């Protein structure tokens, strides 16, 4: 055991109606530990979860704060519904900080046990500020009201070793391990800006620690910069009504109804219990949405090699409960057991691999041209244990590969790595370099935005081409959906507040296939409703997947099946039953919009939250290269004829590419105008005082930021 640096005793607050009413603050610089009151104002305006995180973060930082400033915080909160066990997907923690990739607030949601156990230990939210001089770990004993900060230099860096060791250390015996959750990252997060956080949960059936990831935006990098080796919480005694809810019978009733849907329908719908989110890999390929070789195309015949059936039949354990919090019957956290590693420092060892989720198979598979399930699983494992956000890694590496194959950078400039599409060995070596902080791996870890500058300034690459093919907005790499033919999703990605992640909206089928939102105003309505609705999950501690990865059998009878109205009503009922409040589905959206607009103003305050920051790279909108145009020439020529009244027979290829680009860029401008109007923003993307007043968020500190920019 390392030297104890600080001990702190507290009386765990009693939870009432989903809130403990207390938040925990720890300053790493001076080892100060304090508790704060969670006020009625906070509950009213920010609800919980991401709302609480952003409110605390706002007060911690200034416009000059950057990711590695001592005052930057990592804040996490599970929300008032977090920890109930009667419905699926009720253990989500939201983590926020100022991101090293974007310089604005990032939010990332994550399963695992840490958030609920933290709340049951008496804390609605947890702020970590300052920087430690030595590596430390923080242990919270929720049963005994004790917090301990100790030196942690001697522990391993990588998650699969560290979390196992800490779980064993703090558990009294094997049965006690389920009461422990660890938050940590890995060796690569010491060097790369795309470091992520692993949140553990102990799997008593497999007798191993499992992990979910708060992946986006470099949260692991910040944890390493603060020299926090791990956060550990221990709480023994999880049971159905620790939230002291107002109406347990309604929660039970809604929960039973939902679990019956899972039992009756999941095997007919998305097969979440068999394969999890990777069920969509082949669907995405068949609909031209699977990002392939840096988003150049939307699918590949070889995708069949990484299809759900391959993982189900050959790799993933079936028939074992795989929920990342108690009570989740959707059970999508899949695991490949006893996987034999072939490369890196753990070569020859057999390990459990959490996944692959869809983003993994699509990103580390198709987008890198790696159609080899074994290689995808090995990449999956090393991203997780090294603490790398696999989405940023995949999209960034795909960009590097295309730069290399188009002669923009050389093998020599990459330290000898032959990063051509499909070379999984080179991809894995890039990861291992990132872990060691060596060679080209260290440079790659900076992310696409910084790589574009380095490639242009130091390697002489073409800045226009790199801008077109570098799939990032605001500094964050795109998540793994090709979307050239969905204008609404182009906006859904590029106008997402934190950067292009699909957790705000996924409108591709509604827009591109169903043709349900044909006008700019229709698309703007969708880009209002869905981001607002989906924000709500992160305020209250819920997972999005049970909302629409399973739908009631009679959902087709509703006026708006894409919204899954019965499940929305479930959420309204559960919120009211936990908190004792009386909201309806309209107020649910209002709760979300308050936080959504707050986050936009926060980005404006940090200097990056207006129109200029909402433009996508052109590859998001259309074909950059001749090969891309030719890959769907029939479609693009048809669009020239029907949408622009041009005759493609009289145009050469470059003229057709240029005409397509002019049209699509103009469409995107018009979409921005419509979305900004719908969201109550100025033409420059700034929330208006009038809109903030309408939703009760005309707080003086917000008006101070936006009024000079009206």
């Amino acid at each position, binding site marked *: 055991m390392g030297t104890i640096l600080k001990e702190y005793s507290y009386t765990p607050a009693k939870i009432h109606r989903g809130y403990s009413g207390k938040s925990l603050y720890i300053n790493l610089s001076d080892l100060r530990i304090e508790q704060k009151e969670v006020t009625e104002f906070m509950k009213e305006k920010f609800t919980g979860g991401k709302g609480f995180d952003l409110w605390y973060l706002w007060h911690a930082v200034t416009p000059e704060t950057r990711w590695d400033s001592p005052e930057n915080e990592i804040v996490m909160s599970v929300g008032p519904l977090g920890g109930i066990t009667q419905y699926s997907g009720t253990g989500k923690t939201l983590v926020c900080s100022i991101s090293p990739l974007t310089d604005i607030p990032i939010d990332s949601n994550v399963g695992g046990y840490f958030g609920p156990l933290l709340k049951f230990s008496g804390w609605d939210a947890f702020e970590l500020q300052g920087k430690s001089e030595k590596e430390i770990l923080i242990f919270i004993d929720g049963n005994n009201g004790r917090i301990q900060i100790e030196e942690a230099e001697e522990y391993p860096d990588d998650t699969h070793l560290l979390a196992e060791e800490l779980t064993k250390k703090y558990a009294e015996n094997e049965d006690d391990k389920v009461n422990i959750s660890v938050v940590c990252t890995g060796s690569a997060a010491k060097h790369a800006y795309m470091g992520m956080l692993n949140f553990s949960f102990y799997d008593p059936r497999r007798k191993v620690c499992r992990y979910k990831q708060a992946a986006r935006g470099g949260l692991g990098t910040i944890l390493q910069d603060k020299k926090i080796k791990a956060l550990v919480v221990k709480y023994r005694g999880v049971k159905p009504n620790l939230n002291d809810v107002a109406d347990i019978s309604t929660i039970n009733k809604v929960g039973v109804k939902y679990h019956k849907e899972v039992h009756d329908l999941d095997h007919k719908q998305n097969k979440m219990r068999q394969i999890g989110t990777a069920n969509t890999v082949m669907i995405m390929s068949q609909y031209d949405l699977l990002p392939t070789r840096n988003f150049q195309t939307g699918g590949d015949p070889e995708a069949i090699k990484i299809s759900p059936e391959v993982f189900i039949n050959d790799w993933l354990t079936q028939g074992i409960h795989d929920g990342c919090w108690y009570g989740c019957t959707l059970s999508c956290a899949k695991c490949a057991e006893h996987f034999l590693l072939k490369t890196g420092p753990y070569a020859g060892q057999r390990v459990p691999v959490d996944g692959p989720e869809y983003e993994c198979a699509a990103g580390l598979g198709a987008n890198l041209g790696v159609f080899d399930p074994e290689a995808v699983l090995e990449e999956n494992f090393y991203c997780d244990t090294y603490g790398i956000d696999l989405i940023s890694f995949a999209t960034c590496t795909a960009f590097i590969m295309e730069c290399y194959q188009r002669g923009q950078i050389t093998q020599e400039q990459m330290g000898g790595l032959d990063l051509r599409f499909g070379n999984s060995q080179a991809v894995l070596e890039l990861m291992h370099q990132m872990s060691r902080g060596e060679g080209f791996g260290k440079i790659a870890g900076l992310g696409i935005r910084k790589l574009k500058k380095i490639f242009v300034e130091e390697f002489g690459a073409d800045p226009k081409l790199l801008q077109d093919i570098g799939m990032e907005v605001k500094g964050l790499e795109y*998540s793994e959906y090709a979307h050239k033919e969905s204008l609404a999703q182009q906006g859904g990605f590029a106008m997402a507040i934190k950067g292009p992640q699909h957790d705000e909206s996924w409108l591709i089928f509604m827009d591109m296939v169903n043709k349900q939102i044909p006008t700019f105003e229709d698309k703007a309505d969708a880009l209002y409703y869905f981001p607002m609705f989906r924000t709500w999950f992160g305020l209250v501690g819920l997972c999005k997947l049970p*909302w629409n990865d399973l739908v009631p059998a009679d959902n087709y009878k509703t006026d708006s099946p894409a919204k899954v109205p019965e499940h929305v009503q479930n959420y309204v009922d559960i919120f009211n039953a936990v908190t004792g409040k009386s909201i309806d589905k309209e107020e649910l959206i209002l709760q979300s919009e308050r936080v959504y607009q707050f986050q936009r103003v926060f980005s404006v305050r940090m200097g990056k939250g207006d129109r200029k920051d909402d433009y996508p790279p052109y590859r998001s909108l259309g074909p950059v290269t001749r090969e891309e145009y030719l890959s769907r020439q029939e479609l693009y020529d048809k669009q020239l004829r029907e949408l622009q009244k041009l005759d493609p027979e009289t145009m050469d290829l470059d003229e057709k590419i240029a005409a397509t680009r002019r049209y699509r860029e103009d469409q995107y401008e018009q979409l921005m105008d419509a979305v900004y109007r719908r969201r109550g923003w100025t033409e420059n993307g700034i929330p208006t005082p009038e809109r903030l007043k309408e939703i009760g968020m005309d707080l003086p500190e917000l008006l101070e930021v936006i009024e000079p920019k009206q």
Partner: protein
Amino acid sequence: MIKVNTEDYPWHAGMTVRALLDEKQFTFRHIIVRVNGQFVPEEEYEKYPIQDGEDVLVLHLMAGG
């Protein structure tokens, strides 16, 4: 000619819902089909006829990701 999700699509004699889904490569399992506003259950796709001029809606129920 018929309409499929608001867009013109060539009709041919003997067209059924299943044939249309195959032609359009609508392979996603989780869909709703309506012909002239009438819901068509999945078990009727093979035989349900589509007539010239009809308005077909094939709603793909995924707003997730």
